[in-house]
Structures are given as structure tokens and as C-alpha cells.
């Protein structure tokens, strides 16, 4: 087997993986800490509907995914208010709608199942230059917002009421986080797959939380874990001829389980 870096497509795959492993935990940390992990699944299933829509009308599927994901997070926010203490229902309703929409729309696409399939499970080794640039822009946007709004995101994640009282525009920051979640899920669906992106949002953060000593170290560790999962996942999938998206998620799950078993409770 040739050297992994002798292929242009593998270099692009590594570049995309490294970038998405920076962006996903930046969004994943506040989502997990706000006990809102289900939004990843709900949004990614809606993104699939957008991908199907994009393929159907002939636009870039990621653009369709972004549009549908934004609609999904806005719908979740609206429904959450309606259900009050049972707000988790909102994510399930939107996820169900996303699945239904994907099933219906894919029936109208030529080679629909194979096209949709590549987005469901990811096709990182087949990403185009445009998609790599899109991933770079996403990473810059998410990392930039995380850096600039670091203290505001921490404050609303820890105690939203106290944050609002101190003058932080909590609703605006929440809205920005929701939008970034939608965009991250859409772009990452091409890389690790729409069905698995929520894992990349949640698993690195969950692993970091087991051993971290502060919010700051949780963020840094979750990015390092995400890099470990994606880069090692690409290596292993290349040499063992496995699907990269699934390999990345399985490595993450294994590391999480091992960390949980060996660490002493804080």
C-alpha cells in the first residue's frame, strides 16, 4: 500500500478533519453543558433533508443542508418555548420531520440512495476544493466566535439568568450558538456523515469533562480529543480499508469508555 500522504485526496481529507475537529468541540462544549446534546441529532437529520433538497434542485447539497439546518434550529427554539419543561420534545419532533423529509425527497433523486448515503456516513476522502475552503471558513468562523465571545458563552452556559442580569445579551448569544451549530453540522455532514456529526460534537467534550480541571481545560482537551479521533480514524480507516466517518466515531467512543473506566471521579 502506498504512503498515505502520496495521495492528494488524503492530504485534503486530513486538512478537513483537522479543521472540523477544531470547530465541532467549540460548539459541542456549550451544547453539552446546556444539556442540549440532542440538537446535534435533530439538526443533522434536518441537514439530510436539505442535502436531498439540494440534490433534487441541483444546488450544492451543503448549501441545502445549511438552509435546512438553520430552519431546524429556529424551529427547535420556537417549539421549546411551547413545551416548557418538556422542551426536549422539540428536538425529537424536528428530527422526525427531518427523517421524513429526507425519505420523501430522496425518492425523487436519480441514484438518490447512493448520493444520500455518502452524506449519511460521510465521504471525507472525496471532498472537493470548494468543500475544503468551506470547511476552512467554518473553522475560522466558529473558532473566532468562540474566542471573541468566550466569557459570554461561559456565562450563559453556567447560569443564563445571572448572565442576563449582568448585561450579557443572552438571547443573542444563544441565537449565534444555534446558527453556528446548524452551519457546523451541515458542513461536517460531508466529512464524518450527518448521522455521526452529533458524535463529534458530544464525544470529545464528554471525554474531556471526565478529566478536566476547569472550563478552559475542558475546551482545550475536547479539541485535542477531537483531533486524536479524526486523525487516528483517518489513518486506521486508510490502512484497514474501513469507512472513515464510522472509524472516527468508533475510536471516539472507545476512548470515552476507556477514560470513564480508568479515571477516578473528581
Amino acid at each position, binding site marked *: 500500500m502506498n504512503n498515505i500522504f502520496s495521495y492528494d485526496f488524503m492530504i485534503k481529507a486530513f486538512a478537513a478533519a483537522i479543521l472540523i475537529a477544531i470547530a465541532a468541540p467549540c460548539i459541542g462544549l456549550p451544547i453539552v453543558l446546556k444539556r442540549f446534546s440532542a440538537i446535534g441529532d435533530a439538526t443533522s437529520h434536518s441537514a439530510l433533508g436539505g442535502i436531498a433538497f439540494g440534490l433534487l434542485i441541483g444546488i450544492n447539497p451543503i448549501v441545502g443542508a445549511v438552509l435546512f439546518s438553520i430552519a431546524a434550529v429556529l424551529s427547535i427554539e420556537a417549539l421549546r418555548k411551547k413545551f416548557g419543561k418538556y422542551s426536549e420534545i422539540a428536538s425529537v419532533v424536528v428530527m422526525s420531520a427531518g427523517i421524513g423529509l429526507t425519505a420523501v425527497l430522496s425518492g425523487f433523486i436519480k441514484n438518490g440512495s447512493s448520493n444520500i448515503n455518502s452524506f449519511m456516513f460521510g465521504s471525507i476522502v472525496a471532498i472537493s476544493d470548494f468543500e475544503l475552503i468551506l470547511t476552512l471558513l467554518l473553522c475560522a468562523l466558529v473558532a473566532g466566535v468562540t474566542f471573541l465571545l468566550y466569557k459570554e458563552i*461561559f456565562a450563559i452556559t453556567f*447560569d443564563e439568568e*445571572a448572565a442576563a442580569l449582568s448585561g450579557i445579551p443572552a438571547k443573542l448569544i444563544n441565537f449565534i450558538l444555534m446558527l453556528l451549530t446548524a452551519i457546523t453540522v451541515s458542513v461536517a455532514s460531508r466529512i464524518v456523515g450527518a448521522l455521526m456529526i452529533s458524535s463529534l460534537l458530544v464525544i470529545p467534550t464528554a471525554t474531556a469533562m471526565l478529566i478536566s480541571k*476547569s*472550563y478552559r481545560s475542558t475546551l482545550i482537551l475536547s479539541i485535542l480529543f477531537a483531533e486524536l479521533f479524526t486523525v487516528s480514524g483517518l489513518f486506521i480507516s486508510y490502512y484497514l480499508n474501513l469507512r472513515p466517518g464510522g472509524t472516527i466515531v468508533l475510536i471516539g467512543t472507545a476512548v470515552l469508555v476507556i477514560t470513564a473506566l480508568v479515571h477516578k471521579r473528581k
Partner: protein
Amino acid sequence: MKNEIISVEGLTFEYPDTAVLKDVSFKLYKGDFLGIIGANGAGKSTLIKLILGLLPCEKGSITLFGSEFSKVRSRIGYVSQKANSFNTEFPATVREVVRANLFSSKGLFRPFGKEDDKRVDEALELVGMREYKNKLIGSLSGGQQQRVFIARALVSRPELLLMDEPTVGIDAASVNEIMAIIQKLNHGGMTIIMTNHDTPALLKVSNKLLIFCEHGYEEFVDRAELSLERISDILAGKRVHRHE
């Protein structure tokens, strides 16, 4: 001339089908300590939320430092009831939790600096928790956690401190420590409003009292009038209320 901190005039608030506050009025000046007593649902927390703008003030007025809350928020500290029931698994250090309340002095996009860390140290020193600043908040005892939340409220150097049941769910020794800290702050000139079910503890530290009971509220302004027996009688409905 007395330095007026808060003026509440004719404040009335109703939840759907339930009138909670009826025509409440009082004034507090620099250094006052107002204790608020009443049964669950009598309107104690509602009053705090109205002062903080967490509930809309539909009838009556609340003036803070001669202005409205949004313009003077950095001069007001708040320790909530739920500080006792926060997510203890949240991965944040004591320093990170306290520092979060410095937003009003920083504004958007500006990161924290060394001066902010100094203020955090000062606030933690006031509550005797400086040596714990790098500990995870969830690893502390209930009493220590509540002292951290008081430090969080103090870090913005407030002139008025509102506390909603700050000693709920805390062991007796910690309650005494916390009440001593609050009393010391008050003696230093800070104006304090506190709701508390522990009437004797509140009676010991406050110079003014609002008692919410079934048919209205009774306001005491003279410390000499405050006695446990009289308060118990009012809460039991045995005395005629001054305000109805």
C-alpha cells in the same frame, strides 16, 4: 441628607388568577438591611425578581439609585435561591465562576485580564474562599459553594446586594459563617435585601423588615419594634396589619 438606594411605590403584581403583591411601598437608604419574611408563595421571591427586572413591573414603580435597573446593573449584586441547586458536574473553577460576573465592567469581546483576576481574588478574600480559587466549584461543600456565589455577586463591587434564600440547604455552621459575612458587608456600608425562612437569623442582622402575610404586608422600619413573638403573631394572622 440620606442616600436613597431603592424606592418602591405602590407595587402590585399578579400571576394569572393570583394576586401576589398588593400596593407594596418602601424606601431603603445606604447601609439599610431589609429582611423579607413570609410563607412560600407569599411574594418574597417575586419582589426580588421585580426589582431585578426578571418580571415586568406592571403596576407601581421601582427606582434604583434614582434610575431604572438596566442603567445601574453594575451597582447591584444578586445571590439567587438556585445557587444551591446548580449543576455540580459543570467543569468550572471557583475563579471562572466568580469572574463571569465582571461582564458589566468589561463589555462584549473584551477578554479578562490581570486586573480582573485581582478583583476576583478580592471578592473571594471577602468570603474566605481565596485559597479555593482553582478548585472545581462542584468539588466544594454546599456552604463553600454558596460563599463562592456571594463572591460572584460581590466581584462587581455592588452597593446593593439582593439575596433570595441564600442559606437554604446549608448546614448550620456554614449558615452562621455566611450570615457573619453578610453582616460584615452591611456594616461596611452595603445595602442588603434578603429573603429568608430563618426568621431569628434575619432578625439578628436586619434593621428593616417586610412581612408578607395572607392579606397584605406589614412593614417595620424601627429595629425596636422587631420581636420574634410579634412576627409570629403577624404571620399567624393574630395582629391587625398596618398595610392591607
